[in-house]
């Protein structure tokens, strides 16, 4: 058998073409993102589009985020109390809950939930518009679909994400308070004062906000691009929607590591 026909060659060849395809997709999506950012000026004029998208992307995800935040905060309070009481450090529960939420769980979990609910919805919506030629029709009517359809959705996601992460963290802290102080008897004063002493605005809150902005950008970018790039069949749309959730999850967790290392690594 010639080398070109051997199975080893085939493996490498597949790997190579996959890599090239991935790079090409990355390039396409970057150009796509640039075109979206060029549409920000038009969006400022037609804020009505942005508001409608903020509703469907942000407001409708609110309930999911709030309930999840509540339960995550309560579990943190419960689990944290159990672990800390081994060291006699129950009074530091406030710091533990708040730090976990603000630094990590708030941005990350709300971004994952956002990707699952709003991201997949965006991909499906845009994908269907591709399949039914609505975007093509818009182009022929001399309306740029990127400015009219894609950009409002992107910026709505970008704005919603930090707000949702903050809501998640806030409700989580309150959930931890409810369990820790209300149910388990941690001292209320200690809960809040240790928290306020232990968390720094710049290092913790602001970093958490930066994380959620980065996540919002990446998740929404993936969502709208997968929708726009989809193969125009129903199967293509369903695959694109799945890809959005999976790729968003990978991106969030990988970026979280990188950002955490950058922000908190030197402490």
């Amino acid at each position, binding site marked *: 058998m010639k080398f070109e026909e051997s199975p080893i060659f085939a493996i490498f060849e597949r790997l190579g073409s996959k890599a090239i395809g991935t790079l090409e997709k990355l390039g396409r999506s970057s150009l796509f993102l640039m075109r979206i950012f060029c549409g920000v000026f038009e969006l400022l004029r037609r804020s*009505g589009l942005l*508001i*409608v998208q*903020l*509703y469907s992307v*942000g*407001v409708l995800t*609110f309930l999911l985020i709030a309930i999840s935040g509540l339960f995550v905060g309560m579990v943190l309070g419960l689990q944290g109390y159990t672990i800390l009481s081994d*060291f006699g*450090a129950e009074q530091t529960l406030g710091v533990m809950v*708040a730090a976990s939420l*603000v630094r990590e769980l708030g941005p990350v979990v709300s971004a994952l939930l956002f990707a699952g609910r709003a991201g997949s919805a965006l991909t499906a919506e845009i994908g269907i518009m591709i399949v039914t030629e609505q975007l093509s029709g818009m182009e022929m009517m001399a309306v740029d679909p990127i400015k009219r359809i894609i950009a409002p959705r992107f910026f709505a996601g970008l*704005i*919603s994400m*930090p*707000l*949702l992460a*903050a*809501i998640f*963290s*806030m*409700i989580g*802290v309150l959930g931890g308070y409810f369990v820790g102080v209300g149910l388990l008897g941690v001292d209320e004063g200690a809960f*809040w004062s240790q*928290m*306020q*002493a232990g*968390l*720094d*605005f710049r290092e*913790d*809150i602001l970093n*958490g*906000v930066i994380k959620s902005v980065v996540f919002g950008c990446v998740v929404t970018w993936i969502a709208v691009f997968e929708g726009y790039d989809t193969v125009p069949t129903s199967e293509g749309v369903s695959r694109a929607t799945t890809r959005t959730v999976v790729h968003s999850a990978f991106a969030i967790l990988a970026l979280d590591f990188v950002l955490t290392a950058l922000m908190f690594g030197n*402490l």
Partner: protein
Amino acid sequence: MLHSKSVAFFVGLFVFVGICALFFLAMQVSNLSSFNDRESYHLIAKFENIGGLKVRSPITVSGVRIGRISNISYDKNNYEAIVEMRIDAEYDTFPTDTSASIFTAGLLGEQYISLNVGSEDEFLAPGDELELNQSALVLEEIIGKFLFSRAEERASP
């Protein structure tokens, strides 16, 4: 947009709640309320061992926090750690023989600097150095001393 009025209302509500959440986190959860660019001045203290002291660790006197560590560096000529302290400007009446000690908050807590007020008449000026500072207690050294003293006790009848 059939119900654009209610859409706008809910969006406004959502953004409002989000901003409130950020505010809550800033105020209630972090130390923003005590974070202000009060006027301050710098003092230096050198230690043989700073233990787990970090930049932004608190500096207290009589248990009250009056400042934070702004910089930690190393003097390679005298083989000592140089700690730069940022003290609130309103606390400017420390005698020149004030010294600094490194203590630990609680058993396993973070480490901080506590100032021991001296008795001289003159006060420390910005940039002055504190003398005779007590370094951090290193756990291994304490255990070593303890074991050594126990061994001595055993040895001498």
